[in-house]
């Protein structure tokens, strides 16, 4: 009996301890959230380099929470009553604009380096100064498998996706899951209105367009020969080329839809000074240059003057910037239409 008593006592102790672990963890979490030194940033790229760079530059401590665009937005929405983040930095300008309209951001902050924004990017800053753009990349460029297509055979324009020569051999990422894919798809709804956009994408589907959850899955399909052409996010495309994969990139003459990366501060942040320092840090030309030089993911156009993009990036890259309000207002409608239409 003594053995069983001791076993039960052990179980009770462990369970109680788990409560204590939880409590002490809670206490630790609470302390951490009140700790003026620790800034929590939700981001979808550059998590491997930005933390140490920021800590070294400012002395503030930073905690990074990395996730896909959909994961970040889901967490932010789920935490609406009780945000766990101080700054969100992601290439989700329309979704982030929506959060601003819902009053979730700290307003009126003008970072010192904001004056260095290029004119194109100054236009993207909303009236309430909810967020600042730190750069933009092509949500998609035409990427083709050069083992199976020559430059002449490859599509030169987005409209070529409905060309019967590419029947069932073109793929794009799912706009409901991959953040850049929504920027890509919604661009056609802006250029040609809702009905015109639907007509273009319907033509692609009629030509056997294939959908993959995220850009890496799309890249895998392109390499495996499952598809011949992909509307692949810029960094993913250049990384394949850099890895000597049989892939070539085409920047269509009409331009590539832009996915704009912005940084916004939570209205309920307890680390306001650190958050401001982080946004200002991201707009610092020296930092933007350092990010481009340090990361393989940095195939993008910087938002401030005096910063050079990666040398192997297309010199005449033409980005099509979104109409943010329209993109935000029609986000649910476009995604729902796309999901329902694609399944047919």
């Amino acid at each position: 009996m003594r053995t069983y008593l001791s076993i039960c006592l052990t179980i009770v102790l462990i369970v109680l301890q788990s409560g204590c672990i939880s409590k002490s963890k809670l206490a630790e979490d609470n302390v951490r959230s009140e700790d003026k030194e620790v800034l929590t940033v939700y981001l979808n790229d550059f998590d491997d380099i930005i933390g140490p760079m920021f800590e070294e530059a400012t002395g503030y401590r930073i905690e990074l929470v990395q996730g896909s665009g959909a994961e970040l937005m889901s967490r932010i929405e789920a935490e609406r009553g009780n945000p766990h983040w101080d700054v969100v930095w992601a290439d989700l300008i329309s979704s982030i604009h929506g959060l601003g309209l819902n009053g979730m951001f700290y307003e009126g902050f003008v970072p010192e380096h904001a004056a260095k924004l290029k004119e194109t990017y100054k236009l993207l800053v909303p009236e309430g100064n909810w967020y600042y753009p730190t750069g933009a990349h092509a949500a998609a460029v035409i990427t083709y498998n050069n083992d199976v297509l020559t430059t002449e055979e490859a599509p030169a324009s987005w409209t070529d996706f409905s060309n019967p020569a590419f029947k069932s051999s073109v793929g794009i990422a799912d706009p409901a899951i991959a953040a850049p894919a929504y920027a890509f798809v919604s661009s056609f709804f802006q250029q040609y209105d809702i009905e015109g956009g639907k007509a273009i994408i319907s033509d692609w589907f009629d030509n056997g367009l294939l959908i993959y959850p995220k850009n890496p899955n799309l890249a895998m399909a392109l390499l495996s020969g499952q598809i011949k052409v992909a509307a692949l996010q810029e960094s993913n495309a250049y990384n394949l080329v850099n890895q000597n994969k049989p892939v070539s990139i085409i920047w269509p003459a009409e331009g590539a839809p832009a996915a704009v990366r912005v940084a916004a501060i939570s209205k309920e942040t307890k680390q306001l000074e650190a958050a401001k320092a982080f946004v200002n840090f991201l707009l610092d030309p020296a930092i933007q240059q350092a990010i481009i030089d340090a990361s393989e993911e940095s195939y993008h156009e910087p938002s401030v003057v005096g910063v050079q993009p990666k040398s192997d990036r297309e010199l005449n890259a033409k980005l099509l910037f979104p109409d943010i309000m329209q993109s935000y207002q029609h986000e649910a409608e476009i995604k729902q239409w796309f999901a329902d239409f694609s399944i047919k």
Partner: protein
Amino acid sequence: MTLLLWILVLGPLVAVLTQILIPGFFFGNRQFGQVTLLFDVFRRPLWQHALQNSLVLSISTAVMGTLIGASLAIFRSRWHFPTARWLDVSVWLLFVTPSFIIAQGWVLFAAKNGVAAQLLGADFVTSFIFHPIGLTFIMVLSKFPLAYLAVHAALEWQVESLSHAARLTGASPVRTWFTVHIPLLKPAIGSGMALVFMDAIGDFGITATVSAVYRFPTLPYTIYSAIYTSPIRFDMAGVLSFYLIIIIMLAIVFQFYMMKGSRYDSLTAGAVRTRQKKIASKGWIATTCNVLFLFLAIGIPIGCTVFTSFVHEPSKGLAMDNWTVAHYVDLFTSNSLFVVSLLRSIKIALIAALAGLLLGAMIAYVLIFTQFRFKHLLESMSLISLAVPGVVLGIGYIFVWNQKWLESYGLLLYGKPSILILAAIAGTIPIITRIISGTMATVPRTMLDVAQLQGVALSGRIFSILLPLCKSALVTAALSAFGASMFDLAVNSILFPPSQPTLPVMINKAFENLKFGYAAAATMLGGSIVTTLIITARWLLNLNMRRKYR
């Protein structure tokens, strides 16, 4: 206990269903939503397909899985042949292996750049596997053990006089089987089929894994997509969860209806343990079929995972310079999340298993030995989480444990590992309760009554009589719960704290990011460590008990 079960299971479930009527209820917005959303499942193509795909996949899996599981169990219980033990071991291995790991193995095998197409030149495998029929095939091979175990357990004893009577009246052996044994197995076949159906329709791992290559939306995956998109749609997730639960409840009612009106208590004092006959001739046919089947069910998915974990490029085959242990070394580099996520998962699963053991044992005691007025209610509540898919339970936990008012009580658990512990306990309760109550039911109540008459207090009766008799079940229950909690992908994917991934989340993310070698190495090493822990714990506990009662 009822309150605890309410907090752990029913509360989150009610929270999910509340979303249908009042989508902003847990975020301070008490406005009614659109009830018409309930009918969108019959209008929206995506939802229609998700519902249709789920039903087709789970019904065909239930039928095929039960057919295969029951046939194998019947054959195994009647005949002895070389490699028969392999079947038992493999069934348990498949039973405890999470479906997403099996699915990963199949993706590595059947993808366009996978082992089958690149090494074997079998291109047809890709189009076969990434097709509704192929998914059903994977699902059947992953879920048939539930039917096998249910039927095999029912065949442990048999009343030979029934079959003798049939044979004496001129029935052939085949007819005896179909008119005597199979009808008596109806409860086991029915419950096996219901279990396979419920497990298949709630399965998240297979469709989530295969979605990287092939789109096949099901209800659990569409629920997950609704909460991992922007703008987030908790109301849609609530509606789809509602339908998922309704379908599972219908399956339970169907099973109950099947059993109603007939008696199956056929065991008498003349029952004997089923004896297996050795196959006199042509045993090699059974052996070959068994080996081929096991190769298909385990060899391909696990073999491909092992192979991928040890090569640079699976497409380069068996060339000497292709072999590497680099993926295993990568698991221990400074920026690898393997060690921390493994330790985090072990800690969560350990606490959940022990807490679940305490609660499950108490529930089992109340169910078996007390006259508690509401014990049927308690039993139903303890079983509910078995019928609630992890995806649904996960989003329910977000609603319940992310309310601002909980912060002042230190109970705002969303975003913290504690929420995973609670969800894991909820998931383990049905397993633990079933295992322990099954053994407790064999303990004669008179033993406890006699002890009580002798003046032994309740604690004495429990510690001196009940626990020694149930020791094996307690160990099995705790270790089963530990194993199940380690690899629950659905709950972990939804509730893992930011920047603190657990093992299944880490493996799945590596797989999603096409780090196949790394994901495969993490699967193999993580799985081996957990299996070793379970075997060692079992051995140590058994050793301790043997010493005690020597």
